């Protein structure tokens, strides 16, 4: 699939849409309409319909400016004839030929490659056994329906029967084998009729109801019209028997095809997920492993890398957050705690075990609390000499508490060294005027724990992460 307008060659931009197709020749880089004296402008009448000199490139379906398959847009680009005129001609011709032109259109759609591509949809469709099966199934259903209808008196259905069957089969194959953007286009065309679209959309459901009402009224009219001739009901019974016979014979096949479609879709989703996973794992884990191998001689560096990667992977797998970002950073408390963990681990040779219970959104008070927690964690990383710091945050209905604990050398609170005193004072100062409290507990050889609490504004409800 060479999808995407980015890969389309420059000549593939004929007519951005119908309304804007007047200036397409300029877009091509050919002589523009403003350049008087261009040979194709000599005929006044022709110049009304002919927009350009035509492209010397082979005929292709156009990606841009198409309505259905881009066949008309392609012919317009090739011949220089206005695309709207071509479309009107095709619609009129379809009506006159009871649909054969539409069938030809669909076949052209199948056989004509899109701009920038060498293969057509038909060559892909030939390998699509299930698609062919589905098309055949639909064709058989349609054939039965049309035969039934025409035998019931709607003889006018005989003429467009073949075109209808060809169109449906062709569209099925296109919808299964076309490029992704083509399928999307097709879905957009079919959606309102099938009712697969968003049911909240009023106009679409209106269209569907109108269609249903029309069919029901038509059916009633036919029924009442044939009321005086009950002998018509006898062939109807025969047809019904025949129909049920065919349905019983083919139902398992139709069901299997429907199931296959579902399975195939699931398989495709799985494959996409796997590809996504592989690319992420490559971007993160494999890169880190490569780095670790190269720095095997520096254990501290290796631990730092491994911790960082572990944290990122964990956040991705269990919190669904993209690698390289911190969910809720600056927004929620748990995001803030994760940020502290990440920063301290990156800047100091220490691991931070962070546990958060509950979560809530941050306000200025809690930002201050997080600031104090960060300072306490950095302090532990710098001075405690411990290998890990435990960081525990709990959000309760009326208060938020954060505990920073290390099992490092500790100190005697009564004989406070200057740095530790600085910690207690600055941590306390950060939150005291907002109504928070800080308690530092420590003993020599027993580690240190800083407990920080802050009352919550009562209107804030606890939010689970």
């Amino acid at each position, binding site marked *: 699939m060479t999808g995407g307008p980015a890969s389309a060659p420059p000549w593939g931009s004929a007519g951005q849409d119908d309304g804007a197709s007047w200036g397409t020749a300029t877009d091509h880089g050919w002589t523009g309409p403003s350049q008087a004296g261009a040979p194709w402008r000599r005929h006044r009448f022709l110049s009304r319909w002919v927009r350009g000199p035509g492209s010397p490139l082979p005929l292709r379906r156009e990606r841009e400016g198409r309505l259905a398959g881009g066949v008309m847009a392609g012919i317009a680009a090739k011949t220089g004839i206005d695309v709207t005129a071509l479309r009107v001609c095709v619609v009129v011709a379809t009506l006159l030929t009871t649909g054969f032109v539409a069938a030809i259109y669909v076949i052209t759609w199948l056989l004509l490659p899109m701009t920038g591509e060498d293969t057509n949809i038909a060559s892909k469709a030939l390998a699509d056994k299930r698609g062919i099966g589905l098309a055949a199934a639909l064709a058989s259903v349609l054939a039965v329906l049309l035969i039934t209808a025409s035998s019931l008196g709607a003889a006018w259905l005989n003429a467009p029967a073949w075109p209808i069957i060809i169109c449906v089969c062709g569209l099925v194959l296109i919808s299964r084998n076309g490029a992704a953007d083509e399928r999307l286009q097709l879905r957009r065309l079919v959606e309102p009729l099938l009712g697969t679209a968003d049911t909240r959309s009023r106009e679409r459901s209106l269209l569907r109801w109108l269609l249903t009402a029309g069919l029901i009224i038509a059916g009633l009219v036919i029924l009442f019209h044939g009321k005086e001739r009950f002998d018509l009901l006898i062939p109807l019974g025969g047809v019904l028997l025949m129909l049920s016979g065919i349905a019983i014979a083919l139902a398992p096949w139709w069901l299997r095809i429907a199931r296959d479609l579902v399975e195939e879709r699931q398989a495709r989703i799985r494959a996409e997920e796997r590809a996504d996973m592989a690319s992420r794992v490559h971007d993160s884990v494999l890169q880190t492993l490569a780095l670790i191998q190269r720095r095997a001689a520096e254990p501290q560096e290796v631990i730092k890398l491994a911790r960082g990667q*572990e944290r990122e992977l*964990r956040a991705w*797998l*269990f*919190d*669904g957050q993209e690698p390289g970002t911190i969910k809720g950073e600056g927004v929620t408390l748990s995001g803030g705690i994760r940020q502290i963990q990440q920063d301290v681990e990156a800047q100091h040779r220490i691991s931070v*075990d962070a*546990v*958060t*219970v*509950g979560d809530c959104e941050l306000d200025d008070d809690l930002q201050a609390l997080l600031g104090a927690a960060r300072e306490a964690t950095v302090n532990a990383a710098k001075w405690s000499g411990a290998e*890990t710091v*435990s960081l*525990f945050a*709990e959000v309760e209905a009326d208060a938020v508490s954060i*505990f920073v*604990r290390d*099992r490092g050398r500790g100190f005697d609170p009564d004989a406070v060294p200057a740095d530790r005193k600085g910690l207690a004072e600055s941590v306390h100062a950060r939150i005291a005027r907002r109504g928070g409290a800080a308690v530092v507990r420590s003993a020599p050889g027993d580690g240190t*724990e800083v407990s920080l609490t802050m009352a919550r504004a009562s209107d804030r409800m*606890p939010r*689970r*992460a």
Partner: protein
Amino acid sequence: MSGPVSAAAAGQPRVFLVDDHAMFRSGVRSELAGHVQVVGEAEDVAPAIAAITEAVPDVVLLDVHLPGGGGQAVVAAIKPQLPDVRFLALSASDAPEDVIAVIRAGARGYITKTISGPDLVDAVLRVAAGDAVFSPRLAGFVLDAFAAGAAAGQERPSFDPELDQLTTREREVLRLIARGYTYKEIARDLFISVKTVESHVSSVLRKLQLSTRHQLTRWAAERRLT
């Protein structure tokens, strides 16, 4: 099974390792050497069940993620026939639903693979002695799970309401575990004995295993989604 080896290692708990990574098994083996007696190892569910039934160890160190059905399958198969075998689960991840699932299956504790050697030995000995082992993160999960239930209210009355709530004391103990305290430190902090701390943790474990409340599983599922 009681040969000269077990005589030499008298008093040491007999430990069985189940993990699909050979490298990890050998690492754990060397860390446990001298403290416990490793009586066997397996790398998948079916061989593990067969070998554990054969060896009857005191403690099974069980990886949560195994190719043939996960650690829960091993617990589920062994528990009915050998109720005295205790399981200590460990994994590289600590996704809440993993933790809750393996604890509910009957494991006596849960630790992550990043645990240090001495802490691992301590955890194994503790489980061998019949205690529960809660890592700080597990304690956090449990607090979160029960708090979530309380916040959601009892919209569906439970079979046994006592199982659906933690006592104040249990919550205090869990909070201290989450803060990184050892049992000894918790005991000192709360002026209770280490045995009492252990009984509180075991009681939380029991509630976790027996609670029929849907909140527990729903909580785990919700955490996964956000």
